[in-house]
């Protein structure tokens, strides 16, 4: 049987991962078909119907400007998933490449890359993102940029560490004895042996990024109203916390479910992809 197939099967048997996958598929579906299924235009205001509780017309009620919370929450899925996937895509790619280069070549290249990593990691991630996003001004692009700047070092650090250990393995030395080029060795030998933990980290990274992005918007430094975004919806709901708590309830639970789904999946991947976990422990602990 094929290795990938076995891994996928094991993943499916992992209950949490399966739940995660189902939720993620559902969310992607929602994001994709939001225009078809949302009962209202998420931007459509109706001041006569403001702050209504859940009813037949508005399943999750209406906000302070009479917009349909259900529709806004649906559209919010789009922006959160988009930020998560784009940021992780960019950072995982750049971070991994830098990590392989840093670990493989060592010396001055390593020194420069790792000092850059230190600088970024010397600072609590969310605060750096906050400062960057705050200074550059609100907007989708700036949020993505701020999160990308703060997220790449995680991959670089991880991959560098793995590269250092894989590099010492004899099969890499064998490839050098075969006079394979450095690029070949990195691509064929180092990278494939680092990729599993990167996949795990990237999955968990999507979860992380979605929370960060929502936090930025919550603080008013990310996506701005009237764009339907969960973090900024939460912020807008604060003044009505006493009278209309559902304004903050629905976006909050959406963030949590989304993040939880990616965390479930990442956790399941960690169990299936991590060879150490696979090893059967037969001696008594």
């Amino acid at each position, binding site marked *: 049987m094929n290795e990938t197939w076995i891994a996928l099967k094991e993943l499916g048997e992992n209950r949490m991962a399966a739940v995660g996958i189902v939720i993620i598929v559902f969310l992607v579906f929602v994001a994709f078909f939001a225009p078809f299924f949302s009962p209202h235009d998420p931007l459509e205001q109706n001041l006569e119907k403001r702050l209504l509780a859940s009813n037949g017309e508005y399943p999750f009620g209406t906000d302070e400007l009479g917009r349909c919370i259900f529709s806004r929450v649906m559209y919010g899925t789009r922006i959160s998933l988009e930020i998560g996937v784009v940021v992780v895509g960019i950072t995982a790619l750049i971070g991994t490449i830098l990590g392989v280069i840093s670990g493989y070549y060592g010396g001055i290249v390593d020194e420069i890359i790792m000092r850059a990593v230190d600088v970024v990691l010397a600072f609590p991630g969310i605060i750096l993102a906050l400062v960057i996003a705050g200074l550059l001004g609100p907007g989708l692009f700036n949020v993505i940029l701020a999160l990308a700047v703060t997220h790449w070092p995680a991959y670089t650090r991880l991959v560098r560490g793995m590269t250092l250990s894989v590099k010492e393995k004899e099969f890499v*030395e*064998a490839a050098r004895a*075969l*006079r394979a080029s450095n690029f070949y060795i990195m691509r064929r030998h180092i990278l494939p042996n680092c990729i599993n933990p990167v996949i795990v980290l990237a999955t968990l990274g999507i979860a992380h990024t979605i929370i960060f992005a929502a936090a930025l918007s919550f603080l008013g430094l990310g996506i701005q109203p009237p764009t339907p975004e969960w973090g900024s919806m939460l912020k807008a709901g604060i003044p009505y916390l006493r009278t209309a708590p559902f304004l903050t309830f629905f976006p909050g639970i959406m963030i949590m479910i989304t993040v939880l789904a990616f965390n479930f999946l990442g956790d399941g991947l960690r169990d299936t992809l991590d060879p150490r976990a696979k090893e059967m422990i037969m001696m008594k602990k």
Partner: protein
Amino acid sequence: MTKVKVEVENLKKYFYSGIFRKKVIKAVDGVSFEIKEGKTLGLVGESGCGKTTVGRTILRLIEPTEGKMLFDGEDITSLNGSKLKKLGREMQIIFQNPEASLNPRMKIYDSIAEPLRIHKICNKNEEKEVIFELIETVNLNEELLFRYPHELSGGQIQRVAIARILSLNPKFIVADEPTSMLDVSVQAQILNLLKDLQKKYAISYLFISHDLEVVEWMSDEIAIMRKGKIVEWK
């Protein structure tokens, strides 16, 4: 008279450490020897005596601090570029640890095909034929070709390692403790295989081991190393 295949003159390899690079470890400290065509030089010593460094240096996997290395009379001490790549077809190495000597994420077939692909020795169609021939030479079952290394035993992996470098038709092989992690019954298989190949293809070996008995059985000449120097010839 058989001709000299490999010649090493006053080889030195120092490792420097510490903040000011002042700490010196003399891993290899003036080693000279020659290996004739189709013959085996055994290199014996306890762990940390520098025998492994000698093997790596000859293959130019480590750059020597001082000294000269000749292959077929040609100075290879500072060869580079395409000439060094070509040298890769002539000189090869077999490692100690079977678990680490094959890429765990590559199928056995691809591991064996790798040298052929790197050196562009044959096209895709011929490749298959060559590989099947190779595994027959080292006495491996075809079924194993489409498995991953962790599904093989140590002895089988060592055969794969031998098969893959044989595709290059090397004339000199450094065997760095090739059986020290294998069971005795399997050790004998591998050592016999190495000897058969030597007869068949006139390969010269530098056979590195800590086990004097094994070296005595394998080698035409034996050098004993201690603290970076050859202290005794047998």
